[in-house]
C-alpha cells in the first residue's frame, strides 16, 4: 500500500466519528464536486451512466474496445462529448452528415477504392498545435501498425494514407467501400477520433495512459474523482470552434457524475443535482415527475419519454436450432402474441407511449416515409394491422398518430398460429400443452437481461406469459450483461430479448446488413455457418448475399441503395428472424431548473436529447442558464450554433478525381442525391408542425402523507413486535 492509499484509508476511518457528530448539521449544497466558490449555475451536471470507473486515470481511447473512461463505448466520462476530435457527426434525426473537423463530406473515387478528406482551416488542439492532415495520416498509420486488437478496422481496410497538402488527405482502401468514412463519423456512440501526432508519436499504443487527454473540444479535463464516479470538465476559452463557428458554450463547467443506483439518480434529479439523465424505469420516473416542476424530457411537458432509441427491442430467435429454424414456427409464435397487452404495459404514468416498430427500423419520420409506408401492403399480407394500437396511442397523444397512422404490429391470430404449428407436425398433448413434432413437450427458454436494460426483461416476462397461455411451457432466464452478451455472440440461446436490429440512420447496411451476408459468417467446428444477429442461420440466403454485394458498390444514399434496403426488409419480413416490438421509451430527463434551451420535441428539436452520445456536444453548446441558480462565469446569452447538414458522401467523376489527387484541387462538381433532399424536407416539415398537447398538471410536492404513513406504520409494527417479544421473553421468571 503506498502513502496516498494508507492516507485515504486512515483519514476515512478516523473522521467517521466526526461524521456521526456532523449528522446534526444540515447541509444543502456542496454535494457536487466543484472547485471552491463555484456556484451551481456555472455547472452543467450530466449523468455518468456507466457507473464507477475502475481506473479513472486511463484516457487511452484505443487500447481496448469498450474499456476505460476514454474508450469508444462508455460515454459516461464526457470524453466523447467534450474532448475527442471527430471528423464528422451524423445527425440521427435526419441521417445527414455534419462536417466537423473535416470541411465537407468525403470525396470518393468513382470506383470507391480511394477517398479524399478535406480538413477545415483553423482547427487547433487545445495546446495551440494546429490539427492538420499530418495528424490524420499519423492516426491511420499508427493504428494500422499497432498490435491487435488496436486498429482492427484500419488493418482490414486501409492500404495507404498520405497528405496531399496541409489540409487534404488521400486514403487508399484495400477493397472498394463507399462507407469507409463511417469509421470516423459519429453515428451514435462515438467513432474513431483523430489522435494528436505530437502527443502520441513514439508512445506504446497499449500502455500510454494519455492522462490528462489532449482535447480538440470546448472543454478540458479539470478534475477526476479518485474513486471513479465523477469527471469535471472546464471550459476552454480558446477553442477552435469559438473562432470558426463563433460560439462559446454557456456552462463554465460540465460535470459527469454517477450518483449510484437508479433510486439515487431519481432523488438527485428532484434535488436539482443532476441536469440530464439517461433513463429510468417508468415507475422511478414517476418520482421525478411528481417532485420536479421544472422537468423536461423529449417534450417540454408530459408525455416525456423519448420514443426513438436506435434499437428496436423485442424477441430474437436462434434460427439455427430446431424448431426455431422454421420460419413457420417463428411466425406462429408471433401470431400467438397479444401486442396490445405488451404495448399497454409500456404506457407510462405520464402517458408516454412507445412507437411501434414491426420492422427492424426505428420509425423516425424519415424512416416511416422511406420504409414503413412503401412496404405497407407487403406487411399487411403478413398479418400486419396498422390500427392495432392506434386507439391507445391516440388516447395518449403519441406523436405519430395524426401524421403517420400506419404504425401497428402483427395481429394476434391464435387460429393461424395453431394451423402453422400443426402443419409442421406439432400437436397438443392431453393437457392442452404443445408437443414438439417428436412428441416431447415443448419448453422454450427465453434469455433476457438482468440488472441492465430492464425494459427488455419486462418484455420477456410479458411474452412468456402469453406463450404459456397459448399452451407452451416457457422459462425466463435473466442474465447479467456478461453472460447475456456472450450467449448472443456465440449463439447459445433458443429465444432471447436481444436487439439485433439497431438502426441509427437510414443506411440499413451500416446498421446490420453487413452481418447478413454468408461471406461474413464464421465457420465453427462441426457447425454450419454461424454469425451474429440474424446469421445464426444454417443456410445462406442467396438473394440477400446478392443485395449485400451490390450495396458494397453503391453509394449509401443513392436511390438504388434505398431500393435494395427495401428488398432486404421484405426478405426479413418473410423470414422473421426476430420480433421487434418498439424502441423502449427512454426517460431522457432534462432539468429546466438551472438550464434551458434543451432540445424538446417538436418546437425546439435540434438534436436527440441523449446525453451519453457524442452528439450531446451540440446540446451542451446550446443550453443557456435560466438565472434561477446563482452564476458567476456562465455566459447568459450564448450565440446560437449553426452547422451545415450535408449529404453523406460526394462521388467524384473520373476527371474530377484525376484533378483532385493529381494537381491542386479545383472546385469539385458534386453528385447529390435527390431522394435524400425530399426526405430531409419532410423531416423539417414534421419538426415545424405543431402537435396539440394536453397539458398535464405536475404535482410539485412529495407525497408526505403516504411517506409519513409508511414510516409510522413501520415504526408501530417494530414497536409492537418488540414489546411482544420482550413480554414473551419476560414471562419466564426465575424461581430463585
Amino acid at each position: 500500500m503506498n502513502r496516498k492509499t494508507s492516507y485515504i484509508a486512515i483519514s476515512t476511518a478516523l473522521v467517521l466519528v466526526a461524521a456521526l457528530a456532523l449528522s446534526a448539521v444540515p447541509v444543502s449544497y456542496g454535494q457536487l464536486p466543484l472547485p471552491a466558490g463555484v456556484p451551481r449555475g456555472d455547472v452543467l451536471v450530466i449523468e455518468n451512466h456507466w457507473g464507477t470507473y475502475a481506473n479513472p486515470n486511463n484516457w487511452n481511447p484505443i487500447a481496448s474496445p469498450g474499456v476505460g473512461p476514454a474508450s469508444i463505448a462508455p460515454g459516461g466520462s464526457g470524453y466523447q462529448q467534450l474532448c475527442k476530435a471527430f471528423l464528422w457527426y451524423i445527425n440521427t434525426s435526419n441521417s445527414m452528415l455534419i462536417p466537423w473537423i473535416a470541411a465537407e463530406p468525403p470525396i470518393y473515387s468513382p470506383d470507391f477504392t480511394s477517398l479524399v478528406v478535406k480538413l477545415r482551416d483553423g482547427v487547433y488542439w487545445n495546446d495551440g498545435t494546429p490539427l492538420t492532415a499530418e495528424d490524420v495520416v499519423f492516426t491511420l498509420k499508427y493504428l494500422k501498425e499497432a498490435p491487435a486488437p488496436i486498429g482492427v478496422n484500419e488493418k482490414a481496410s486501409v492500404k495507404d494514407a498520405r497528405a496531399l497538402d496541409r489540409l487534404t488527405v488521400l486514403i487508399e482502401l484495400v477493397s472498394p467501400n463507399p462507407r469507409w468514412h463511417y469509421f470516423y463519423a459519429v453515428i451514435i456512440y462515438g467513432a474513431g477520433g483523430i489522435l494528436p501526432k505530437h502527443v502520441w508519436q513514439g508512445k506504446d499504443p497499449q500502455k500510454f495512459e494519455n492522462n490528462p487527454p489532449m482535447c480538440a473540444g470546448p472543454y478540458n479535463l479539470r478534475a477526476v474523482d479518485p474513486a471513479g464516479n465523477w469527471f469535471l470538465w472546464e471550459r476552454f476559452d480558446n477553442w477552435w470552434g469559438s473562432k470558426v463557428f463563433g460560439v462559446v458554450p454557456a456552462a463554465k463547467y460540465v460535470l459527469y457524475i454517477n450518483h449510484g443506483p437508479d433510486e439515487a439518480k431519481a432523488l438527485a434529479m428532484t434535488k436539482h443535482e443532476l441536469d440530464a439523465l439517461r433513463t429510468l424505469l417508468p415507475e422511478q420516473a414517476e418520482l421525478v415527475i411528481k417532485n420536479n416542476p421544472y422537468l423536461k424530457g423529449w417534450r417540454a411537458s408530459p408525455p416525456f419519454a423519448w420514443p426513438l432509441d436506435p434499437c428496436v427491442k423485442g424477441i430474437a430467435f436462434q434460427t439455427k436450432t430446431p424448431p426455431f429454424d422454421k420460419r413457420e414456427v417463428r411466425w406462429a409464435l408471433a401470431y400467438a402474441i397479444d401486442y396490445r397487452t405488451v404495448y399497454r404495459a409500456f404506457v407510462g404514468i405520464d402517458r408516454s407511449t412507445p412507437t411501434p416498430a414491426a420492422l427492424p427500423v426505428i420509425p423516425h419520420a424519415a424512416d416511416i416515409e422511406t420504409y414503413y409506408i412503401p412496404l405497407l401492403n407487403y406487411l399487411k399480407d403478413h398479418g400486419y394491422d396498422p390500427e392495432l394500437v392506434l386507439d391507445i396511442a391516440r388516447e395518449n397523444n403519441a406523436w405519430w398518430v395524426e401524421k403517420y397512422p400506419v404504425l401497428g404490429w402483427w395481429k394476434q391470430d391464435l387460429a393461424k398460429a395453431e394451423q402453422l404449428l400443426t402443419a409442421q407436425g406439432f400437436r397438443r398433448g392431453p393437457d392442452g400443452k404443445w408437443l414438439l413434432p417428436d412428441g416431447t413437450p415443448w419448453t422454450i427458454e427465453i434469455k433476457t437481461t438482468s440488472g441492465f436494460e430492464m425494459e427488455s426483461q419486462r418484455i420477456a416476462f410479458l411474452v412468456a406469459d402469453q406463450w404459456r397461455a397459448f399452451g407452451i411451457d416457457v422459462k425466463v432466464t435473466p442474465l447479467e450483461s456478461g453472460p447475456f452478451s456472450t450467449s448472443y455472440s456465440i449463439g447459445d440461446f433458443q429465444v432471447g430479448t436481444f436487439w439485433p436490429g439497431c438502426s441509427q440512420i437510414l443506411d440499413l447496411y451500416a446498421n446490420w446488413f453487413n452481418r447478413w451476408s454468408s461471406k461474413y459468417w464464421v465457420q465453427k467446428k462441426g457447425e454450419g455457418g454461424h454469425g451474429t444477429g440474424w446469421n445464426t442461420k444454417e443456410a445462406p440466403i442467396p438473394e440477400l448475399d446478392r443485395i449485400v454485394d451490390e450495396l458494397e458498390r453503391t453509394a449509401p444514399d443513392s436511390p438504388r441503395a434505398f431500393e435494395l434496403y427495401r428488398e432486404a426488409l421484405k426478405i426479413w419480413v418473410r423470414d422473421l428472424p426476430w420480433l421487434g416490438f418498439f424502441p423502449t421509451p427512454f426517460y431522457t430527463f432534462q432539468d429546466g431548473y438551472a438550464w434551458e434551451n434543451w432540445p424538446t420535441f417538436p418546437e425546439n428539436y435540434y438534436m436527440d436529447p441523449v446525453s451519453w452520445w457524442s452528439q450531446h456536444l451540440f446540446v451542451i453548446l446550446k443550453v443557456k442558464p435560466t438565472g434561477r441558480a446563482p452564476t458567476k462565469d456562465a455566459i447568459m446569452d450564448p450565440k446560437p450554433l449553426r452547422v451545415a447538414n450535408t449529404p453523406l458522401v460526394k462521388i467524384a467523376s473520373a476527371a474530377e478525381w484525376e484533378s483532385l489527387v493529381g494537381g491542386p484541387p479545383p472546385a469539385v462538381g458534386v453528385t447529390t442525391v435527390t431522394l435524400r433532399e425530399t426526405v430531409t424536407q419532410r423531416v423539417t416539415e414534421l419538426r415545424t408542425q405543431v402537435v396539440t398537447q394536453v397539458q398535464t398538471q405536475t404535482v410539485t410536492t412529495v407525497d408526505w402523507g403516504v411517506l409519513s404513513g409508511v414510516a409510522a406504520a413501520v415504526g408501530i409494527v417494530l414497536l409492537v413486535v418488540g414489546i411482544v417479544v420482550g413480554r414473551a421473553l419476560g414471562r419466564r421468571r426465575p424461581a430463585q
Partner: protein
Amino acid sequence: MTLIPRTGVDALKFLGIGLARFSNIFLEVFRTSRAFRVGLVIFAVMIVLGVAVSSFSPFDPRRWYLVPPNRPPSPEFPLGTTTNGQDVFWLLTWSIKNSLIIGLITAMVASHFGLILGMLAGARGGLADRILMIMTDSFVVIPSLPTLILLAVLLRDVMTIPLMGLIISIFSWPWPSRQVRAMVLSLREREFIATSIFSGYGVMGRVFRDYLPFILPWHLVNLTNTVLFAISSEAALAVIGVSILSEATLGVMIYWALNYSALFRGLWWWLISPVITIILIFVSLFLISKGISDYSNPRLRWQARG
C-alpha cells in the same frame, strides 16, 4: 480400526436415547416456556400459510396481469396487488412456502454437518482435527456472497428451490463448525471430560454425552440463524437479480418490489409484506430456540425448578 464400529454403536445408542427423550422435552418446554409457545404459534401460522393456504390459491399467483395492478389492500385483495398485476396475498403464501423450503434445507444440511464436523474435530484432536479444520478453513476463507453469486449464475439453467437451499448450505456450515470446535476445545480441558476419557467412553460417546448438552443451546440458536441466513442470502442474491426470478420467494418478491420502486411510489404493501414476513419467521424461530435453550441448559433448568 476398531474405532469405527464402536463409534457407530455409541452414536446410535445416544441418538436413540435422544429421540426417546425428544417428545418429553417438547411437551415440557411447551408447558414451561411462554417464549416457546408464542414462537411456535407464529411459526405454525407461517407453516399453515405456506403449506396449506397456498394450495388454495385460485390461480397461479406468479402469473402477471391476472388482477388489476397497483391496488392497495382491500377486501377483494387483502394485501393489495403488484405493478405486475399479481395478488400480493397469494404471492406471499407461495413465497413463504418456497423460502421456508430453502431455509429448512439449509438448516438441516448445513448446521448439522457443521455441528458434527466441529464436535468430531474438537473431540478427536490430532491429525483428524487438522485435516477437518483445513477443510473447514478453506471454506471459511472463500468470500461467500461473491461465490454464491458466481454459483447462482453458473447453475441458473438447472436452478430449483431445493438446489438453492443446497448451494447456500455450502457456506453455512464452516462457520458453526469452527465455533463448535472452539467450544469443544474449551470444554475438553475441564475435569469431567478427563473423567469421561478415563472411564473408557469413545469419541462419539463423549461427543453426545458430554459435549452436546453444552453445545446444544448454541446449536439451536445457530439452527434458527441458519434458517434466517438462508432466507436472507436468497434475498441478497435476488436483489442482485441472480435468484430464480420467475419463482415466488420472499427474496424475489423484494426484488420485484425494489425493481418497480415500490418503496418510493407508496406501494408499501408490496414491499412491507415480505419484509414483515421475514421478521416474523425470525422472531418465531428465535423464541422457539430461546425456549429450548433455556430448558436444555441443565443448570438453567435446575434454576428454573428451584
